[in-house]
């Protein structure tokens, strides 16, 4: 079943796990999908994007709403042919519906938007550009490409587009307003789909802001989160099958699996081609990152910033952070895999110890506090980081930062709850 899935809050991991099901084919764009799967709870902006995606799908098409076990926010308001509860067999239900749609016993869905031109067709000029002169006018209310100097000093067309919030190789909810020349990024301004609702119950790291949480639980969650990131990153780098393997590992990981992660790290390091894909891309040096609490991103640049160093429980375990000094995307890959393996050994050794609980915690993405998350601090770095990269490298760069927008939303709500 070709499915285009939109993950609202609280459903990201459930949607990612659908990649483990061979019955589902998650398509990168809605075009080749017949089922629109709406999971979790959406923000208004995500809903709007999902409506547009719905209309871009090919017939016969149906919408399925999938409640997620950990989302409390508002549900999707798009009309859905089928609503599946969190504990039902999503694959079986969707397959049955899909079969009925294919044989015509269930009607295909019409468009949600009216398909007309955003601005009336003026009919002026040979291509209806609606103005006069060489590049006159704004066809359909959209400006013609601007012109700007490229890095070789040539004046070339520059296209302004907004990519996201459902773009398959950016974190869902993030969109970039990009100016592109060919596939070179001239300018990229990030934008986060506003008021992203919050998953509940909160994950162990958000809980650890208020109460001490067992180290073993934290470290297992850390390893899982890092592996999920690696699975997604591998897919985007063109290794989707290997990504599925890592995702399966993330689902069943236990304290004894450190060797498996180390083996994965070795494989990636030895196939030099993976280094070719990420090496030298998007370097972030210590000058920018010092004091930022950017977690693995900072430690990949050699900064020994880690809140775990201050926790008695971790000190008792003899914790010393994994460090790399490459500062580029490749270093961040090695860093995260190294940390995942380390997290498992910590979890194995932790016993009953608990840690944190005083408003600050080291999450898999960096220093998490009641007021602010690592993603909030990393997002402002994006424009400078992406400028001048070609699009493939820009995607590699964004992936390597592991921006968790949901976590950012969660701590913001926690703060609001505390002040109220």
């Amino acid at each position: 079943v070709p499915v285009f899935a939109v993950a609202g809050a609280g459903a990201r991991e459930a949607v990612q796990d659908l990649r483990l099901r061979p019955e589902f084919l998650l398509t990168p764009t809605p075009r080749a999908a017949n089922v629109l799967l709406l999971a979790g709870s959406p923000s208004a902006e995500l809903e709007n994007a999902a409506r547009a995606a719905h209309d871009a799908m090919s017939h016969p098409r149906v919408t399925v709403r999938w409640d997620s076990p950990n989302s409390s926010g508002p549900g999707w308001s798009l009309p859905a042919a089928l609503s599946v509860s969190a504990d039902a067999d999503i694959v079986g239900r969707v397959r049955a519906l899909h079969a009925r749609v294919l044989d015509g016993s269930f009607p295909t869905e019409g468009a949600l938007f009216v398909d007309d031109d955003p601005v009336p067709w003026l009919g002026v000029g040979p291509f209806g550009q609606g103005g006069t002169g060489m590049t006159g006018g704004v066809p359909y209310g959209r400006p013609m490409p601007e012109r700007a100097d490229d890095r070789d000093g040539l004046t070339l067309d520059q296209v302004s587009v907004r990519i996201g919030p459902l773009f398959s190789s950016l974190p869902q909810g993030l969109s970039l307003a990009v100016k592109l020349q060919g596939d070179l990024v001239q300018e990229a301004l990030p934008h986060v789909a506003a008021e992203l609702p919050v998953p509940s119950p909160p994950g162990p790291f958000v809980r650890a802001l208020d109460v001490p949480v067992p180290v073993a639980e934290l470290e297992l969650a850390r390893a899982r989160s890092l592996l999920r990131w690696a699975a997604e990153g591998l897919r985007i780098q063109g290794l989707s099958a290997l990504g599925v393997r890592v995702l399966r590992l993330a689902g069943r990981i236990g304290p004894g699996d450190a060797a498996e992660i180390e083996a994965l790290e070795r494989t990636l390091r030895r196939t030099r081609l993976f280094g070719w894909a990420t090496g030298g891309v998007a370097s972030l040096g210590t000058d920018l990152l010092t004091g930022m609490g950017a977690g693995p991103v900072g430690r990949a640049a050699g900064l020994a910033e880690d809140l775990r160093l201050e926790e008695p429980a971790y000190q008792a375990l003899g914790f010393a952070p994994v460090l790399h000094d490459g500062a580029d995307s490749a270093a961040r890959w090695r860093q995260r895999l190294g940390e995942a393996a380390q997290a498992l050994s910590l979890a194995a050794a932790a016993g009953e110890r608990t840690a944190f609980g005083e408003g600050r915690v080291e999450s898999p993405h960096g220093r998490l506090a009641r007021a602010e998350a690592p993603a909030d601090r990393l997002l402002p770095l994006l424009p400078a980081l992406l400028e001048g990269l070609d699009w493939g490298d820009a995607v590699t760069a964004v992936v390597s930062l592991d921006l968790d927008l949901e976590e950012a939303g969660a701590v913001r709500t926690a703060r609001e709850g505390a002040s109220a």
Partner: protein
Amino acid sequence: VTPPPIGLGVLAVGGALVVGVYVVAILDVATRIVVSGAPIRSVDLLLGPARRASLLLIQRRTRTERPDAALWAFAPAFLIGLAALGLSVVPLSPRLAASDPSTGFVVFAVAVGYVIVAVFLHGWSANSIMPLMGGYRFVAQALSFQIPFLLSMLATGLPAQSLAIDDIVRSQASLWNVIRQPIGLPLYLVVGVGVSFWGALALPDGEDLAGGTSAEVSGPGLLLWRAARAAMLVAIAALGASSFLGGWLGPWLPGPVWVVLKTLVLLILLVGAGHLFARVRLERFVVVAWAVLIPLALANVLVSGVSLL
């Protein structure tokens, strides 16, 4: 070699392509299953591709805003045609080829040269940003690999002192080119992956572009485009088997069987590598192509020439 009547030739090449494309699809599913560590079920393996193809056939096409509809439909058909053209010059035995292999080398080179047009048109005609970027990428990629591709093929013509593909096969009676020119085959395969934009060099249709030139395509158009890419891979493997692995030469079995077996070996290599190597950065690939692959290919030609003297 006397080529068969044109109708029979077209039929044979068409049939070979359909079978070849299906074999590529099965190999792709198989490597995917092995690499991802999923349980192997022979139903998925053998019927999975057919099931997915029929789903795409049922799907209706979508329209983007103001596409170049004629070119959009033309591009995949053109790419399949190029693959068929390339495959048609590969001889199955000393007396069996779909078309006259005496000009085979030139015809194949032309087919490879026009791939750039097919892919760019496919990206251009959707009138959308991601496909367009895919098209741009392929132009940069194709300009870089075409010279090493031709040079590595040219080197195989030197021992044969002919550009006819049947002569190239005959010249390997004593020693296959894969041993005679050790860097020839790896070079050929690297750029062959580029021609069919597969695996690590699937840049125009890359995951980071959400599907690139095929991001906006659905239904039969998508099926045709995927089939065209696989067909190109088959043509590359078939010519590689003839130019480097001695084509029909081999003991015990009849010639055509050897050609098919050797093609299959190269296909397994090409498809398998697709799941083991990450996407290559375009910029780095262009640099490597011009600074490493072309000098290597030239050295290959030089060494082959000198060894003939």
